[in-house]
């Protein structure tokens, strides 16, 4: 298999299929290493890649791609690669996608806060 690094968005699909593709995260960078590889899986990998980054072909050496992670605008934790966010944003029809700046934990907290405010206001009125 070959991987097109301009297309790859740094998701987890291929590493979930093949044990010769490893994924790691450190200090706001996700690294995906494609080791030389059992070609019988290539067909499945091509099908599973959401970005069309994988094609057939022989790569003898292993390559590592690195991706900058997006940090949550509230807590600062990295939660997805910047390219994953771009990819997701391009597929979602809504015009306001401000939740994509938050990590899932902070999205839950944000929703809690807005419901809680509603309750607290009503209780205060009684």
């Amino acid at each position, binding site marked *: 298999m070959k991987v097109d690094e301009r297309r790859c968005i740094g998701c987890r699909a291929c590493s979930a299929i093949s044990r010769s593709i490893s994924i790691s995260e450190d200090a706001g960078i996700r690294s995906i290493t494609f080791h030389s590889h059992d070609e019988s899986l290539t067909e499945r990998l091509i099908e599973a890649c959401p970005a069309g980054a994988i094609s057939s072909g022989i790569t003898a050496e292993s390559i590592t791609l690195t991706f900058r992670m997006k940090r949550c605008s509230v807590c600062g934790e990295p939660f997805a690669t910047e390219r994953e966010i771009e990819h*997701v944003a391009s597929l979602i029809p809504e015009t306001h996608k401000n939740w994509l700046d938050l990590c899932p934990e902070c999205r839950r907290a944000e929703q809690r806060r807005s*419901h809680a405010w509603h309750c607290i206001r009503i209780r205060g009125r009684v």
Partner: protein
Amino acid sequence: MGKIYLDPERCIGCRSCEVACEREHGHPRISVDKVKDLAAVPVYCHQCDTAPCAAVCYTGSLRLDGDMVVFDPDLCTLCGLCFVACPFGAIELDSVIHRCDLCGGTPVCVMTCPTEALQLEDIDAITGSTRSRAAGVLAARVRV
């Protein structure tokens, strides 16, 4: 089938829904927390009508079916895009995807909730009861 609706004023933060969900599925898909010790709010999948999770799912593993989002684990590649896309942070990802399937029609969180803060209803019933409750509050104030 209807969706799960929350009346946040009724939630007492007992976490029964969370425990029931974990008992049913092995990992809770609903999470309750308190905000400044003043109110407790469960957060869970809304089965969005314009579901971003289904919009980003390219294998058809997550897809809109009627008024809910159905999940077919056999088609899932564990890419994690739905986890990134969910506006409510209601999808978790480890070696599998954890997301609400409404327990096939009788959600245990709704069954368990002691205060009926969580309810499985269709949208018309919920808007009807919210409207009449708001009207009741107004009427009480007019009388005073």
